[in-house]
């Protein structure tokens, strides 16, 4: 496991995840982050710090970090026009075909568990080119063979209008990429301190993997410096508790 103090030369697990997600964002014009998503928010701000202000980062739920002036629909209208390049989704359940469930477990009419609901996923998953799936709890309960309810499908028939979809799934244990043609995840790397065997045992779906699975690279010193010096204070404005816990900001 990564170490606990941000002041050592080592790094925290959160910093590793932020660094990996920032790499996935790559060069983009506009990254939008949903509510209650401190790690995707930090990754987007890190990508912006590296890109000298690109991408534009929208943190939904923060009036200061969104430009919308036309009500809640403007986000979706923006996405429908292709003006949002990166978005993040989680799920109560995620399956091996990239289907996401934010609604319920068991029969829809007689569920055994209920989540809040699909939010914008049934739309944004189709029209945002890079959707990064994010689920810190990596277990057979969350990564399942088949979701009980498809809030948003991982892939669509050829004649269905679809300019976007999942590109990757990051968990507390590893990073998967997603191949929409094969509707299948591929294990890209296992985070330091975790093992392939542990990933296999805790994943409910089948996935591809290379003969030798790499270790997720540690965040480079420059990334850690940017994160701690530039991103942490920005993040603290929206996620004070998270920034305090991970970066010691505001203490």
């Amino acid at each position: 496991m990564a170490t606990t103090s941000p002041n050592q030369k080592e790094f925290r697990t959160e910093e590793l995840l932020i660094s990996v997600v920032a790499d996935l964002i790559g060069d983009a014009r506009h990254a939008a982050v949903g509510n209650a998503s401190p790690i995707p928010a930090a990754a987007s701000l890190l990508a912006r710090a590296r890109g000298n202000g690109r991408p534009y980062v929208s943190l939904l739920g923060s009036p200061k970090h969104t430009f919308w002036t036309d009500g809640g629909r403007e986000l979706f209208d923006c996405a429908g026009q292709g003006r949002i390049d990166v978005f993040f989704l989680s799920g109560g359940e995620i399956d091996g075909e990239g289907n996401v469930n934010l609604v319920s477990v068991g029969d829809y009419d007689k569920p055994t568990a209920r989540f809040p609901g699909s939010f914008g996923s049934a739309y944004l998953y189709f029209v945002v080119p890079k959707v990064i799936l994010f689920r810190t709890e990596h277990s057979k309960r969350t990564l399942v063979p088949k979701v009980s309810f498809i809030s948003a499908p991982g892939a669509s028939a050829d004649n269905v209008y679809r300019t976007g979809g999942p590109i990757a799934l990051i968990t507390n244990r590893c990073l998967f990429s997603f191949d929409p043609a094969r509707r299948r995840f591929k294990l890209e790397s296992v985070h330091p301190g975790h093992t392939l065997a542990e990933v296999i045992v805790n994943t409910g779906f089948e996935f591809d993997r290379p003969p030798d699975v790499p270790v997720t690279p540690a965040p480079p010193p420059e990334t850690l410096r940017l994160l701690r010096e530039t991103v942490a204070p920005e993040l603290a404005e929206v996620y004070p508790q998270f920034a305090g816990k991970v970066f010691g900001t505001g203490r």
Partner: protein
Amino acid sequence: MPQVIRTLDEALAPIGDGCVLAIPRESTGVAMAATRALIRRGVKRLNLVALPTSSLQADLLIGAGCVESLETSAVSLGEFGLAPRFTAAVLAGTFTMKDATCPALHAAFQAAEKGVPFMPLRGLIGSDVLAHRPDWKIIDNPFDGDDPIVLLPAIAPDVALFHAPMADRHGNVWIGRQRELITMAHAAAKTVVTVEKIHDGNLLEDRELAAGTLPGFYVEAVAVAERGAWPLPLPEHYAWDGKHLAEYAKLAATEEGFAQYLEQHVYEKKAA
């Protein structure tokens, strides 16, 4: 000029039993004082439509037995966790749940505001959200061959209910940047608003305020309710009352605790 400024209970008169009631998402100005007044009055069989999500408001109304159906894309207490009475009621099957997705609700309200019967929307095809909505249809794009697209029927609520910073005596309501409240009011047959205060003068005659103003033409009634969104936030006025919401989440985890919450904060009128 008809009298639009009324007492809270008078203003809520248009919201009768069985009303199709539009309510805004938690961060734009939720009429919580009005919601408590409706529960005290014992309103029944509300058909709630959230634009596009809800939190404490739907949870309270469901827990108090006021709701027949709810159309929404999510209900939760955000960082305070799942909405406990909503969750329990879905598991028990005690009301009709219509799961949607945020842009579908925005689009369906926009259809009503334009007076057209439906609106097309991308996405949705292949989801179970669509599979469980027999009222949503797929057609082929009539302008371009093999291109299936979903049509959503217009949502024209009986009443839209929200809380805003201020209104004038003409019924003009200043909503600022929360433009979806205007869409909601355009779509609804009647709009009832609670406000922090009455603005002296005419908001539409103030150049800086006019653009963020819902014209009184659309407004049925206005009532003053100071801190009327509490314990939810009112943008640029006050934030979530985190302590209260944490207490609610804890109490509402059980039916007994929820009954205790209603006694303390709704029926006793301490909170109003």
